[in-house]
């Protein structure tokens, strides 16, 4: 089965996939015109920042089977294309009840008016259609095609999983103390990722700084002008 496989550790947060997705789902299919269309075309992949702002995850429909959204849709607007392995929405039959969004484990459904909504301006369920037209033509889905860092890759799912397993085996062996896993030159993003972690640590430190000052003021320092600062040896920085 061919599918889009996600390597979240490679995502660089450039949002190219979101842009390409919206263009692919436009009438003009033009990067310079799509955003002018009414209704404006909508992205179906969502890149959100991770636990620190320098990690990101391109979240898109997993095309589950059985698919909870398909199972709960009361109007039969969600169907399965068995040949391509895709779960698809038929906007004309959508009643906008959002049951699909309620049960989706990945929160990938959004609601917007589309050109083929039941009536003009009516919001319907919008989600990834696997770029079925492109795939039928033998092309990759738009998101995977534009991804320069292979955070989104289109191919035979078991082959992609196996390739990932091969990459990870080095880490597993290293964890067991067997061998070094360092790629030549190291992880090119390590500095960037640790900068994101440093920002989170700083925010936590700021919160604790305020707690420390509040506690100190409660102990009799009434914030006299020019002398209301804690010393540098407070309890800041724990929790890093």
């Amino acid at each position, binding site marked *: 089965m061919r599918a889009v496989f996600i390597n979240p550790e490679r995502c660089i947060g450039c949002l190219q996939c979101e842009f390409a997705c919206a263009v692919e789902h436009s009438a003009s299919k033009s990067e310079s015109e799509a955003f002018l269309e009414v209704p404006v075309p909508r992205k179906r992949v969502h890149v959100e920042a991770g636990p620190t702002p320098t990690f990101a995850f391109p979240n898109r429909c997993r095309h589950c089977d059985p698919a909870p959204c398909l199972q709960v849709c009361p109007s039969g607007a969600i169907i399965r294309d068995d040949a391509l392995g895709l779960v698809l929405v038929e906007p004309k039959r959508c009643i906008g009840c959002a049951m699909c969004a309620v049960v989706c484990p990945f929160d990938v459904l959004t609601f917007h008016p589309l050109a083929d909504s039941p009536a003009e301006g009516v919001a319907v369920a919008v989600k990834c259609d696997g770029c079925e037209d492109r795939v039928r033509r033998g092309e990759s889905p738009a998101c995977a095609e534009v991804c320069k860092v292979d955070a989104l890759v289109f191919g035979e799912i078991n082959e992609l999983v196996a390739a990932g397993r091969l990459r990870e085996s080095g880490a597993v062996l290293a964890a067991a103390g067997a061998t070094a896993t360092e790629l030549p030159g190291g992880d090119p993003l390590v500095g960037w990722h640790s900068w994101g972690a440093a920002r989170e640590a700083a925010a*936590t430190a700021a919160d604790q700084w305020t707690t420390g000052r509040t506690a100190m003021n409660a102990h009799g320092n009434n914030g006299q002008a020019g002398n209301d*600062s804690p*010393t540098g040896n407070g309890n800041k920085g724990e929790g890093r």
Partner: protein
Amino acid sequence: MSGSNGNGRARRLTINEDAQAMIDVARREGIETVWDRLEAQQPQCGYCALGLSCRNCAMGPCRIDPFGEGPQKGVCGAGADVIVARNLGRTIAAGSSSHSDHGRDILETFGALARGDTTGYQIADEAKLRRLADEVGVPTEGQTAQEVAVGLADALLDDYGTKKGSLSFIGRAPEARRALWAELGITPRGIDRENVEMLHRTHMGVDNDYVNTLLHALRTGLADGWGGSMIATELSDVMFGTPAPVMSEVNLGVLRTDQVNIAMHGHNPLLSDVIVAAAQDPELIELARSLGATGINVVGLCCTGNEMLMRRGVPMAGNHLMQELVLITGALEAMVVDYQCIMPSIVDVAKCYHTKIISTSDKAKFTGATHVSFDPQHGAEIAQQIVRMAVEAYADRNHERVRIPGKPVRMMGGFSVEAILGALGGTPKPLVDAIASGAIRGAVAVVGCNNPKLPQDLEHIELTQRLIENDVLVLVTGCAAVANGKAGHMVPEAAAMAGPGLRSVCEALGIPPVLHMGSCVDNSRVIALAAALADYLGVDIDKLPLAGAAPEWYSEKAVAIGSYVVASGITTVLGVQPAIFGSPNVVGLLAGGLDDVVGAKFVVEPDPAEAALWIRRLIEGKRRDLGLPFTEVVADALAPAASATPVGSRTGA
């Protein structure tokens, strides 16, 4: 952690109670601020954050895959090194241009003043005027102040062109440093020339060697520090007075519930100086009284605020990240802006209140603001007009929405090089002696902006605290000065927070352990002071126990400052990652190899405790090399654990 209540969130964004209170109000009332927009921008593009995207030409835009599997060259063939170096070069050219254009505005007004074509300006420091004229070779014997000023203006105007081939103030740098610049081919030849040449070099198909580009980037920075910024500082002193120690107050508490409040925001003292004068006009004060106010209260923001505080003791409302929050007090009749660091969003925030945003520079208009074109030839009249608009707006103030959090904190400003030497008795000797004896270990310039990616002011304050506790004198400018003022570091009593050596020196001189040297163009004062110390000791600047730090920098100007400070021989620690980490070679040069070339380099360290430790080791190493008493710096047991991975260091540089 970020709780669901607004207060928990605000405490992760800023350590200032006045800012936390205003962020909570903004959240409750649905007013968008810089932190909301930063959140909406997540995740930010990694190619751009790493410096690996290029849109310098229409064959692109291009980006380089840092993982090595995707494209490794742009359409033109430029790889990561060239693209990162070109991007950094353009950033520095933009920063250098900003300071230098600010300097040119001062210089042009100074020239007009010299020719008698202005209102509202005078020569406030004739002695400095004559000193500067002597320095740059303008005749002063038997000349009137006006004649000297005409000559000085013309001489400095030549610094902007290429005809002269050098800068007037470059002679202030130690001889060894100038020889080094000449040897490297990075002596700045003209202020505008270096900026223009950087734009040329970074056009497709010009400078395709990253080392060559980066050397010119240093020259571009030097043209700012010893050129545009220095001219801005020196001529501002001549026109508005050379700063001397002065007391003031800081934080949002400087706003008055019963007065017309006018905030001056931006950078150029040309405007603020005449506004301060106009706010003392009896007729306008009477108008304010007739509308129910008890007076007119002018406060500062950002570097305009620093300019006014340094020379007039005008109270300071806050630094960069306070510019939206000051509007949310509901107590501001007008925010008068010129240029640089003024968020376009202030117009939107002001719409929620009666506050007028008044733009004044024809090169910096804000859609939705009221524009009053400022023209120094009619400076006094225009200032009157602006203050009148603000006073009239008081009638529209909704007093029920006024929320001014907290009480102001006292702070001292005014430490120009002249004032510091004056406090020392006219010679650097007492300071040099204190450094030599070890009472003061060294000096660090903590400078630069706020950046919403880091909690506002935490890095500035923590780094400064750890330095002064360890007997390191701290010099501050810009947003860093405001942060330290709010923390209470900038009153003479704060000497008690310093280590015993620094404390005794500060108490003997009656000065704070953290000295306010001015606005961001006034970083030229820092290098001038460093040069004076180096000359006194007969060594180059890089031998001195000095360092720079820009813990919360955000702007292109900050990168220009960093580059001239490093090129002048002072290692600089950055708290925010610059967009260069896509090229290990560029990182290796700036954070490593440069040390062997100019005796200084860049370090990236967002943890203030680690940064302080790093700086102390550097300073003690310089002391050892100078043959002064030194100590081995060991990690403070109370300090937070170092982050496991050195941030931004992937080359081990």
